[in-house]
């Protein structure tokens, strides 16, 4: 569905907006998870074919002729991996946020500029 893809891209852009403009690093991380959701939506949508069902066999289905009835399972499989990776990255970012706050007592990304040039 085209609309679904645009919703996904809209989420990606909103996430980018948060990442690029918000100063609080927690918001930046939020932006990152929003982008992630958007991407997942885009990927799953690419595997979708209108009018088809989830690729799970049920009793009574005839094996061997199902590729006309099911949606693509590959994007789903990829998204599963992507979600888990997203969780891992988010968790690490948050731990970073905690540790940085411990050191610098601020969550403002503009204040983390001791390294430059």
């Amino acid at each position, binding site marked *: 569905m085209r609309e679904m893809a645009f919703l996904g891209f809209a989420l*990606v852009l909103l996430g*980018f907006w948060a*990442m*690029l*403009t918000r100063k609080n*690093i927690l918001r*930046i991380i939020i932006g*990152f998870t929003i*982008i*992630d959701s958007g*991407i997942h939506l*885009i*990927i799953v949508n*690419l595997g979708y074919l209108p009018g088809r069902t989830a690729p799970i066999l049920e009793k009574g289905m005839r094996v061997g002729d199902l590729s006309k009835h099911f949606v693509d399972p*590959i*994007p789903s499989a*990829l998204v599963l*991996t*992507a979600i888990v*990776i997203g969780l*891992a*990255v988010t968790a*690490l*970012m948050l731990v*970073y*946020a905690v*540790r*940085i706050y411990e*050191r*610098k007592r601020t969550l403002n*990304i*503009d204040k*983390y*500029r*001791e*390294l*430059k*040039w």
Partner: protein
Amino acid sequence: MVEPIYLFIILPVAAFLMGSLHQHLNRWQVFIFFTVLLFSFYLPIPWLIHLLKGGSTAQVFTAGFLPPISINLQIGIEEAFLMTIINLLGIMGAFYLLHHFRGTVYGPILYLVFIMGLNGIIMTRDLFNLFVFMEITSISLYSLITLSGSSENLTAGFKYIIASGIASILFLIGTIYLYYLTGTLNIDVMIASGYKIVGPAGSIALIMLLSAIIVELKQFPVNGWALDIYTASDPGIAAIIAGGSSSAMFFAAYKLLPLWSPSLSSIIAGIGIMTYVLMNLMGLKQVKANRLLGYSSIAQIGLLVGLSALLLHSTPVTGLTTIWIILGGLLINHLLAKAGLFWISGLIKGESLSSWSVLRKYPSLLFIFACLLMALAGLPPFPGFWVKWNIAMQLAQHKQFLWLGFIMLGTLLEAVYFFRWFGLIMKSELTTGIRVRISSLLPIFTGTFLMFFISLTMMNLLSGFNFNMLLPILIATLIFALKLIPGKLKALMTIFIIMFYFYFLLPELSGLYRLFAIIFFPLSALFMIAAMNKPGYRNGYFELLILIVLSLGNLLTSHTSLQFFYSWEVITVATYLIILRGVKRFDTALLYLVFSLAGALMILAGFSYSYAVTGSTFLGILGSSNSQITIYILLVGGFLIKTGAVGVHIWLPGAYAETEDDFSPIISAILSKTGILGLLLVLLLMGKSFAANTELNTILGWIGVLTAFLGALFAIFQEDLKYMLAYSSMGQVGYIVLALALYSHLGWTAALYLAFNHIFFKGILFLAAAGIIQRLGTRKMYEMGGLINRMPLSFLAVLISIIALSGVPPLSGFGSKWLLYNALLEKEWYLQAALAFFASTVAFLYCFRLIHSIFLGQEKTRFRQVKEASLWFLIPQYVLIALIMLISLFPNIIIEPIAQVMADFIPATLSWEGNTLMSSLGYWNGNVIMIITMGVFMIPLIGLLLRVRSMQKVKQFNIVYAAERPDKPETTHVAHNFFPHYQKALGFLVTPLVSKFWAAVSEWCHTIAGVLRNIYTGNGQTYALHIVFMVVLIYILAGV
């Protein structure tokens, strides 16, 4: 052979188990850690051997299905090679980090998984699996970066996560759309079904994927975060990032190369090479060591990326092995050298560049450091040199001259900041603060040793094993190892070795080469007698001298341009090091190096152009008819820099004058002739039909005569004795260039005769200067005076040499000038002849000043007690005087062989009648002139010598400053500002326009670098914005 899949079984299992069992494992933990790493290092080696023997690339299937149904891994020769070196780096890096890993189980686990991830990136043939492995390496790095736990660690790491996070988003979008278009995730199948990647959707998907890879490869401008990582993280981690993850990511990019459309791959080439140039430019402004290494790392990867796109994609592939040598060699050179430098940085406590001066206390570490810098700068005998050579040859063959130019610019900039750093280390104040651990040293030494080994292999592959090319380095290293031999003994050994080598070399040489061998070997051995004078060990000095002189021999025996260039660069580096040893300020030596390297790059460009048109590196063929002008300009330009021609001479006075007193004669008299050799070879080998007739020779002639004139002019206004001699050298070599440019038998005979003569008298002058300076402790001429009583032998030597120099009868200088003017008139170059004549007059002025200011005039009270110069200085001087006398009396013993040699190339116009030399314009009998003039000359000389003992009375009111106290007492001396009237008349000619020009060039480079690097604001959000900007930019450039 172990199936590579076991890498992904054993490493995770070890990591999983270490997590829970560490309490039970205790000390075994380290053992397991290293066993697993060793296993991963061992695994690809049998494969590499198997594949090198011609075995076929192996596929590893997972899940029991064939690709593309399931994910497959591939181990081909490139994979095996890269895995071997990366896993080796893994072990060395782990060893280095060992002390960090004590007491934590998390560190080793993360490290193991990181290494596994790198191997996965290299082997996998599935696009999404590549993404997973990229995430594995980055996520393990996110944690490893915080190893030392500083707040910079954390903020830099956070910027990394943001950048890398955006990269993975882009990668995912690209991947999924490519899957949508091609119906597969397998890279090979995807490449095969590239026809399905069409239209805007296909291009955009590729752009997304490409952008992600460019971010991961840290290319300009999306690399601010990477610089922070290199700066902030523990050097051990920075080493594996710079070496390991960059290399693995490069390989991922390399795998995907066939996917890109031509326009995208030219964008990649552009980004890569721009990264190389701009990062090296910005490196100029850097004062923090680790950040500088970061800039250099990124630059090197940029070069790799750019070259892989240029050579493998947009142009037809020829000579694949050569390209692999380039890419593989560059990779391994960068990996080992950069890791080594980062490891050294971990030993040093300060973070500024100058804090590395502590390395001076550890000569072996300093040696390693110098080796690593030279490797990165692409100098022999390291892998980088062979790579540089091949890059030039390949790019020229592919007609990518613009890119070649950019790459050379980048190389030069990199050399500038690296060797400025080296100079800083050698010359700045000694700092304390180093922590040396054996576990840290081991990987550093192993890495450097490996580099030598690899360089040998590459040499083997490229030019065939040539023992002669290695011999100078071997002998020099051997002597260097014999540290505790006293300097005098080493000097003797050096002379002996040089003469011995000469003895073996001479039969191999003929004609012209034989003449140059005589210049290079016995004469430099003669000059080295002076070195006996200095006490102490002088570590490094003799080793480098041997290296230089023996390499000069190799220059003469070179058959290919590669051999020639190799020896040329060895000489350049060794000379730089020897100058740096002697000078007080490092920028003198740096100036020498930068100009020499620029010259070398021009020579390289010339050779590569010649290779491009003839397909051969054989020195006998330099270019074919349609490209000769370019080759001529490049090669002659390069060699002119070496001779110190006007415009590019600014390195010369400092290098000649500031270096050690007993090296000055060698560099100014002998090493300046390498440029002459080069010019002569170019003119000879370009083919007569072109080289004899080209109008460019006229320009060359003008450059020569202007150099002669301005050199002499600069010399007369110097207060410093050695600077005066240095400028004089510049001028004298100018005459030689002028004579060469004539391209006539007479001219070339004159050139070589001038060359010999120059060696004789300039040798004497510099040696005499060395003797005087040693006794007086000053180089200022106005502080000297009246030394004729104290140093009569030196006086006599200087007197004879300036007679030889100024070209008045009866000494050999007259003969050389006579030949030169004959040759000029024969060619009808009247204007040049007039200017050359005028220059000789100017030369006379400084000669006069030499005698007057130093030896005549009032004796200074503080120098009442000085003794005659040391015997070791006088011996070579008097041998040279004997030679001058000999060739003055019997000019034919030297002119005849020269004329004969030259007659091989150009029909002779000179003839002999007994001792009389006949040219078309006149005749010259050395004996007669000698005897007549001697008579005229000796009488006043004897009178002078008799009268000079008595003091001269000074009139009472002979003071300039009547009532005022002079602010600088020395300026009251008559010998100061000796030629004020001439200064008024000709002074405008010596305004340092050229120095100003080059200073402005340098300043502009630094300013641009300073402005450019402002994009690295230190703000993670700005870096994220750069990425978005780059995506948009690539989209626009690709013209979707």
